[in-house]
């Protein structure tokens, strides 16, 4: 399969022999998910500035698919920054099985927390682990029906950050908030303006008081989506006769095609 020739890897070069499991297990892990353009980086930059002024030193990891400029935006914060590109894989899957390397990176840089921004594209994944602080960033201009459609990255989050409230009416913001609570009744909603940072102090407060570590035994909150078919391994032809694996028809039937 030519598509699988080079498995993309994080650019962390040092070997992890010196990895001290104990300190790694205590490292708080904060995972930020949300669709592209939702405002994740903007919110993070404001929040991390506040954390820095409180003498915190988190390490930042940005996972994206093809390319990202976010590392340049993070670099201005003068903190350790690592970028991972998932290329033809779901970035959420990629971020999960590369977690160890990210933790080692944070540890090597004497960070007191690991903050990871993912690209979260497929709407069926949720990158949060049970022991992380799961933060979903959602754009309030995406319309009041969006929270109901957003999937597990919203419904499994601990904190839901709502951005772009400056562009819509208060009425619409309130309806949006209700819809979020319908999808995730236990979550903590924080309104943050990604442009001027209004509300970021609240988020920084919650980051600071999050102390739990993510150990090697940590698990995912939500199962990753199922996809085992010929398309997954590089088939491009579209006719039905070329497809094998577990396939679902428009009528909802699931069937296994193949040997």
């Amino acid at each position, binding site marked *: 399969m030519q598509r699988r020739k080079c498995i993309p890897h994080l650019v962390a070069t040092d070997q992890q022999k010196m990895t001290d499991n104990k300190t790694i297990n205590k490292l708080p892990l904060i995972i930020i998910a949300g669709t592209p353009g939702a405002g994740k980086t903007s919110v993070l930059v404001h929040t991390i500035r506040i954390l820095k002024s409180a003498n915190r030193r988190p390490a930042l990891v940005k996972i994206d698919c093809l390319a990202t400029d976010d590392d340049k935006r993070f670099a201005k914060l003068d903190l350790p920054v690592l970028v991972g590109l998932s290329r033809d894989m779901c970035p959420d899957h990629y971020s999960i099985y590369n977690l160890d390397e990210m933790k080692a990176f944070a540890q090597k840089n004497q960070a007191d927390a690991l903050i990871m921004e993912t690209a979260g594209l497929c709407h069926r994944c949720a990158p949060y682990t049970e022991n992380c602080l799961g933060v979903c960033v959602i754009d309030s201009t995406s319309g009041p029906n969006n929270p109901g459609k957003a999937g597990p990255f919203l419904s499994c989050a601990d904190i839901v950050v709502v951005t772009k409230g*400056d*562009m819509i009416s*208060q*009425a*619409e913001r*309130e*309806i949006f908030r209700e819809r979020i609570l319908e999808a995730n009744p236990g979550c903590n909603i924080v309104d943050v303006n990604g442009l001027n940072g*209004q*509300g970021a102090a609240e988020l920084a407060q919650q980051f600071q008081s999050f102390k739990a570590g993510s150990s090697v035994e940590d698990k995912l909150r939500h199962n990753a989506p199922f996809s085992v078919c010929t398309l997954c391994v590089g088939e491009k032809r579209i006719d039905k006769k070329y497809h094998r694996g577990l396939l679902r028809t428009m009528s909802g039937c699931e069937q296994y095609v193949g040997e």
Partner: protein
Amino acid sequence: MVKIECISIIGGIDKSGKPENITSLDIREGEIIGIVGPTGSGKSQLISDIEQLSQKDSSTRRQVLVNGKVPSPALRNDPRQKMVAQLSQNMNFLADMEVRDFLRLHARCRGKDQISTDEIIYKANQLTGEPIKPNDNLTILSGGQTRALMVADVAVISESPIVLIDEIENAGIKKHEALELLSGHNKLIMIVTHDPVMALSAKKRIIMKNGGMSTLLEATPEEKIVSEQLSGIDATILHLRELLRNGLYIEENDLNFIPESLLCKEENASLTL
């Protein structure tokens, strides 16, 4: 919901790090306060300090007290208890819904199912020359209709006792009437504005300078008269706008148009002069 009788702004520092001129300022329910000053003088930051009920934790180090006390964390953070509504030029309706359905949905969010949506639409239509119909889609409303509906919605459905208005002057709505509708519900209103009609509608105004609250001016009796006359001019401009919109020619005589609601007020005003 906490009843707001008074909020106090304890002064912090200006952009040079010097203490603000105004060290403490109380604003009571039902009051309308203007915020004026050059661009970059800190008007929006002042609004933002109030919105967040800052506790010396913003760049200005201001502290905001509610009824003389430090507000509880719940009051600051719990979105359901948020006491502040904000109206600004940049806000739009983006939901793909009919006006009536939208208002009903919002009322339900607030636990106010019994509210009549027709009443809100009626109130909004008092503020705009182009009537909103209950079955109009939100996204086709004009800027004026949108602003008018937001004002009526905040006045009737939202319980937020504090309303912050950020430069809505060019929206094409009747500004005096909009403020009356809002303040009629005993809300505490703060208006950032460059517009004399709006600025003079307020009984007091805060002058901002270099990031700090510099002076508090009270409107003089003379300003009150000027304000009412300005309202007349404002109404004339809105009237002309309607005529133009409806494809009519403008005549010199149209400049003398003053709505009846303002006529008797003006006579009173000139009597006291």
